[in-house]
């Protein structure tokens, strides 16, 4: 029972990362029509950013939680302005290929300077220790990650689905020319949206730094699982990616308890099953 609950918790944590990352991918896909292959590398940059802030400037976890997404998000916006914007009008596949190239550059550079081994990042003092819930022992930091990312996901959902800004954004994805005619600066909105998606990836990176070590390739394999999550969810709705992200994390956790051999593959197997039954994904619009 203890082990089952522990695996469930691990699953929920992984699910938080899946949700944050696939949410960012969905936001970017909505506006730029690009599958951001660099998402894993930007997640890794978020974690490294927190590491640098602490070790070079003595800036701790709480500020890193705000600063790292801003810094990496700014980097993302620069990337959108200098590289991605030239691809508008071209086939979607070129966006995938370009961001794949960017991911190689970023990961290669970090590997050159930091090798492939992990750098430690300590859990902040306020979130150390654990709580005895009676039926299980809950490390506070892990609980924090789940709650915090859930809140961030819901805030993003609210921003996009329930505010004026979000309405403009969704309108711009449907018909950019028309939205421009209303006097809205669509290119700037695209840049900011990319920044937002990248910021979400970086935030996930900061959250993950104390749990997983800070490594140049920490996002490389994760991104493929997230892609599978995206295929399963279908990326049709913001809420869909959040729910799918968490749900798949939990399913992965349960598999680790009942049949550990399959824990690496269960998400991919689920992807195959979903594709066989419903090719457009669980919440997806048919393409």
């Amino acid at each position, binding site marked *: 029972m203890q082990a089952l609950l522990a695996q469930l918790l691990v699953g929920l944590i992984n699910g938080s990362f899946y949700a944050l990352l696939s949410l960012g991918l969905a936001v970017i896909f909505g506006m730029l029509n690009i599958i951001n292959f660099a998402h894993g590398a930007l997640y890794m940059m978020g974690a490294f950013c927190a590491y640098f802030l602490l070790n070079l400037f003595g800036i701790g976890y709480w500020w890193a939680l705000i600063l790292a997404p801003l810094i990496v998000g700014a980097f993302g916006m620069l990337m959108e302005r200098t590289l991605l914007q030239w691809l508008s009008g071209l*086939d979607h596949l070129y966006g995938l290929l370009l961001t794949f190239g960017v991911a190689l550059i970023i990961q290669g550079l970090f590997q050159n300077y930091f090798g492939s081994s992990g750098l430690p990042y300590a859990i902040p003092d306020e979130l150390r220790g654990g709580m005895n819930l009676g039926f299980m022992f809950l490390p506070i930091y892990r609980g924090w990650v789940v709650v915090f990312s859930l809140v961030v996901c819901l805030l993003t959902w609210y921003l996009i689905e329930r505010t004026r800004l979000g309405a403009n954004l969704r309108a711009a994805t449907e018909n950019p020319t028309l939205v421009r005619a209303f006097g809205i600066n669509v290119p700037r909105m695209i840049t900011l949206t990319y920044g937002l998606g990248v910021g979400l990836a970086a935030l996930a990176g900061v959250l993950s730094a104390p749990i997983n070590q800070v490594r140049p390739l920490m996002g490389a394999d994760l991104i493929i699982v997230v892609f599978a999550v995206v295929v399963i969810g279908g990326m049709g709705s913001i809420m869909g990616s959040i729910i799918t992200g968490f749900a798949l994390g939990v399913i992965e956790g349960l598999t680790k308890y009942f049949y550990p051999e399959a824990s690496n593959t269960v998400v*991919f*197997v689920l992807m195959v099953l979903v594709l066989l039954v419903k090719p457009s994904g669980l919440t997806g619009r048919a393409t």
Partner: protein
Amino acid sequence: MSTITQNSVPAPSTRRPVRDEMIAFALMTVVLAVVPFTGVYPFFVMQGLCFALLACAFNLLIGYGGLLSFGHAMFLGTAGYVTAHALKVWELPPELGIVVGTAAAFGLSVITGLIAIRRQGIYFAMITLALSQLLYFIYLQAPFTHGEDGIQGIPQGKMFGFIDLQNSTTLYFVVLVGFLLGFLIIYRAINSPFGEVLKAIRENEPRAISLGYKTDHYKLLAFILSGTLAGFAGALKVFVAQNASLTDVHWSMSGEIVLMTLVGGLGTVFGPVVGAFVIIAMQQYLAGFGQWVTVIQGVIFVACVLTFRRGIVGEIGHYFKRSL
């Protein structure tokens, strides 16, 4: 819904300039046949040939069908493991080893093709990527692949009982014949009614459907042909490298295949061959720079996508107004 569009990839003219391609093919064959006598490291050229065939097979899918598979390494790796296992454990002769390995890639491409063609465009890319990662984890755990160690020390043996593959010149020509065979199959497929339908699907799938073509059938056939030939390349590679390892199934290998084709020229007949040799040479000569090779590859990727979408052969062909 969209596939590779006309302005992004040079659309081959409907008139087929077969003569140019024949000359280029003859030239390529002569160069490759002479290479082992010029003092170039034969292992390097053989490896290049395997990757060239792999990239050509991949190009059949993206360049003519508009389908970006980001998991083609799974065919290379699967055929490699099966061939290696057949040679070492079942002690099959080389020709049967190649047949068994290629057959495994065929079976795999039927299954993965049926799953992957249910979605298009970037989803297709993500699904192939995820499927190849699924296989990566299976091979990591399956006992017959020996996990991280891979299958080592594979006997090369005698093909048909008399072609001694331990002799590197003999092996070279066997690999060359295999490459040319695969290349000609792809060439034939492209220049057939089947190839024309594939191009039509790439340009405008709804229109192809409205003309009465069952586009899913064509896409699946292209996927199976591409996967099987990629597997054939993987089976040949076992004899060259004398091992089968996880590197060949990892998704970064799939990325390299994409890069080779992109550098040489998507949708050109000879582009993938040139691209494969360029990338292999780069890795060979820059090996001392460690991870900088990854960075350089990334820069090439970005440069190709932004400014150089036709690739080397595509640019040359465009300059001389020839389709190569």
